[in-house]
């Protein structure tokens, strides 16, 4: 009963609506949609290149940190000539400080 009444009222309003212009978007709507899609795809492409570069950099950076720690650990554990290093930093880096005379001697000058 209620449903029938709703249907009747709906039909009346629907008939009234049919008397007007159908709803439509402005001209070239499809072109505007395609342009937005194109813009989104271009920006997505740039974002994915950016993401790939970040990912690559993170992997190289992580590998470099691991290598640096390994070399430092090796330098600390295998100091070679014990008298060569005067500080912990020198032994970690494996670069003993040299006097000018020693450098002349090493270069054979």
């Amino acid at each position: 009963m209620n449903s029938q009444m709703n249907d009747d009222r709906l039909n009346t309003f629907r008939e009234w609506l049919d008397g007007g212009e159908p709803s439509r978007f402005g001209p070239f709507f499809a072109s505007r949609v395609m342009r937005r899609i194109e813009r989104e795809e271009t920006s997505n492409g740039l974002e994915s290149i950016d993401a790939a570069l970040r990912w690559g950099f993170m992997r190289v950076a992580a590998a470099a940190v691991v290598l640096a720690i390994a070399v430092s650990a090796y330098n600390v554990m295998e100091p070679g000539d014990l008298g060569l290093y005067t500080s912990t930093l020198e032994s970690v880096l494996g670069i003993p400080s040299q006097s000018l005379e020693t450098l002349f001697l090493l270069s054979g000058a």
Partner: protein
Amino acid sequence: MQGPTSERKRAEVQPTDEELLDGARRGDDSAFRQLVERYEGRVAATVIGMLGNTEEAEDAGQETFIRFYRSLDRFRGESSIATYLTRIAINQSLDAIKRRQRWTKRFVSRDEEEVMLTQPVHDAGEEIDARERAELVRTAIQTLKADHRSVVVLRMIEGYSTRETAEILGLPVGTVTSRLSRALDKLEAVLDPLVGEA
């Protein structure tokens, strides 16, 4: 000169929705464009019914097709493209209404808001033609609450049945029926003094 035969031939070579979907999934932009052209009227009826003929409606319409484009691979065809698009369009419109309400709450005083909703759209007793009457109905729909409006748009403008409307909105059939009933009461109350025969 093109006669009825050439028109019939052109109609015969119109690709089906499935063919256009396949093309769009393979990255053929012109196939997707044809789908937009085929369904823009349907989407326009939904978003303009929900939001009025505004820029918000144009935005919601564009966003509807962009979301459809993004979900091409997920669309399995359990419902028709029209129903799928209508569902997206309704959700986009409801989001736009929420944004509008947030904005109105922030920048428009309560009194101004009341005036906006109850302002007469036409002088009572004045003769109106069919086009004006249609415009009055459209304007009256805009005075409905968003959840009532979506039911009216789907039932009255899109022509979906109560069951289909319930499925699209994810609501029980009883809720759709009661919302429709209350929405029609409100429409009658708004339109009666203006049209006199609701």
